[in-house]
């Protein structure tokens, strides 16, 4: 797989950051996950953390090096995260279960699969146009669907933070699964929390991210988002992936996974990525990795020997 990836979380004007995000990949499968812990509830931060951790752990157990059924993986893991939050609350005798939104995307064999709960979003852009998106599990989205309010009224609506599906809620979460969506080189996947989409609509995002190298413009977009949030600004987080080899810049910014050994994973949690700490493209092979690669080639030769 070849892709360029960016992730960043900013606190905005809040005291704590309840957003959590991570990506991890094996040689052949990439997983991105974003969770926004619910502030009005106890331990939103903990909830987001648990959900993201669980996704990473399960991914590393199952993606060896591919997931058998990505959509089933997404569905199962969402439900397990929901259950895990319940047991966490039980264990610590919490009055209320910690809650979080969650959106997770898997890219495998050139196809994307995603699932979400709540109002953290995924957008898929191709050549500047939106070709895929999640639909919020929120009251305002419901009102829009019913034709009661217009799309432009969503941002300022008093109920815009009310969501009817989350992990850790009293009722089981409503989980929306995407279709198996083929990706083309140059496609952009954006996953973000409401702190970003509330201040930057998808058209603007497309403008920021499509025709310019994402590692250059995505950080600018986040700064701009935080600025627009102003003194009441929410936490804002985003993972941006540009699929395929990087062609917009001379910088070696493409992450290349072909030389990873079987059973190996690279994981990045929460941290803001810069060119220097990005793994993959610039990193040397270690001696272990060389041994791994050789072993794998030798076993392939054996397997295909007549």
């Amino acid at each position, binding site marked *: 797989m070849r892709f360029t990836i960016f992730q960043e979380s900013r606190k905005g004007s809040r005291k704590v950051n309840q957003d959590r995000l991570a990506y991890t990949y094996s040689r052949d499968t990439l997983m991105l996950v974003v969770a926004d812990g619910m502030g009005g509830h106890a331990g939103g931060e903990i909830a987001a953390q648990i959900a993201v951790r669980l996704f990473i752990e399960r991914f590393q157990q199952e993606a060896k090096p591919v997931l058998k059924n990505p959509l089933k993986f997404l569905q199962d893991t969402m439900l397990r995260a929901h259950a895990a939050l319940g047991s966490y609350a039980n264990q610590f005798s919490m009055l209320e279960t910690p809650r979080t939104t969650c959106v997770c995307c898997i890219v495998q064999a050139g196809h994307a699969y995603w699932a979400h709960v709540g109002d953290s979003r995924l957008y898929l852009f191709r050549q500047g146009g939106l070709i895929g998106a999640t639909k919020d599990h929120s009251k305002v989205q419901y009102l829009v669907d019913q034709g009661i309010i217009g799309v432009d009224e969503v941002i300022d609506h008093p109920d815009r933070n009310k969501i009817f599906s989350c992990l850790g809620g009293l009722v089981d979460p409503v989980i929306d699964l995407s279709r198996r969506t083929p990706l083309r080189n140059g496609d952009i996947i954006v996953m973000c929390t409401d702190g970003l989409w509330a201040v930057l609509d998808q058209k603007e995002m497309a403008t920021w991210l499509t025709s310019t190298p994402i590692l250059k413009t995505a950080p600018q977009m986040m700064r701009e988002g935080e600025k627009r949030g102003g003194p009441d600004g929410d936490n804002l987080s985003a993972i941006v992936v540009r699929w395929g*080899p990087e*062609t917009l810049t001379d910088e070696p910014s493409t992450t290349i996974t072909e030389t990873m050994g079987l059973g190996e994973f690279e994981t990045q949690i929460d941290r803001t990525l810069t060119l220097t700490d990005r793994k993959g493209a*610039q990193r040397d092979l270690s001696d272990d990795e060389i041994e791994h690669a050789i072993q794998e080639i030798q076993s392939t030769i054996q397997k295909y020997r007549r």
Partner: protein
Amino acid sequence: MAVTNQALVGGYQLLNYRIDRQISRGGFSIVYRAFDETGAPVAIKEYLPSSLVLRTEGDIVRASSAENLTSFRYGMKCFFEEGRALAKINHPNVVRVLNFFRANETVYMVMRYERGRTLQQQIQMRQDQMSERLVRHVFMHLLNGLREVHTHKLLHLDIKPANIYLRTDGTPVLLDFGAARQTLTSGRPKLAPMYTPGFAAPEQYREPDRLGPWTDVYGVGASMFACLAAFAPQAADARVQEDHLVSAKKIWAGQYSENILEVIDWCLRLDPLERPQSVFALQKAIRDIPQTKRKLTFMGNLKKMLFSQIGA
């Protein structure tokens, strides 16, 4: 005087292989003929990028600086990729990998040794033009191999007569998958991709996003062109600026079947979408060509001479 990497000397024992002599030297590697423990010949490719001087004597490869080591190890990933891809392909028209190992602080790929010569040598040696029969024979078999390569989601990206080996029985073998790395190395000046002018498709220069089976199809078309002309077509980057390439149909009218000339022109279209989109489509087009006897007329010969002078 330019310092170059020292090749392993004849008689050197590399694990269970005994080096006989150097066969060829490329941008990223040296290829040797060697003998295994049973005395059977093999070809061994040693990863040794020529842009980094790493071995001036002896056998051990040493990076002279930390920066060199980074580039060296980075390029090694590409070598692994080639090995990984080839290990899966077991096809009579694709070079076969027999072993892969690490020694002397670098890596080695052992391949089946083939007897014969490259299509490039074949073109250069021949006094007269290559017959349509031979061109068809070579490319129909080669395309079977290339189809297998594409089935494994790999593009060759450096198809040219020098990478097509003709066994003594006349069957072709596709060699040197080192170029498959090229999409990896954009922006790494030390291990920059080296396209072969004339055989590389226009999208290889400018639009790596648009690489596909049609990119190798361009290389096939250019190689067929070279068989007839004994020189490469005008380089694609120059063609994009100003296209001076005279169509095969014009140059060799009357000497080769109209259809094979049309196929060559079809493969050499600048727009990737206008070329055959798959090897299968190309094979189908070649199969459909009716066999015709080659006719050499005085006018035809004159025309060929004139055009080839202009073209060159």
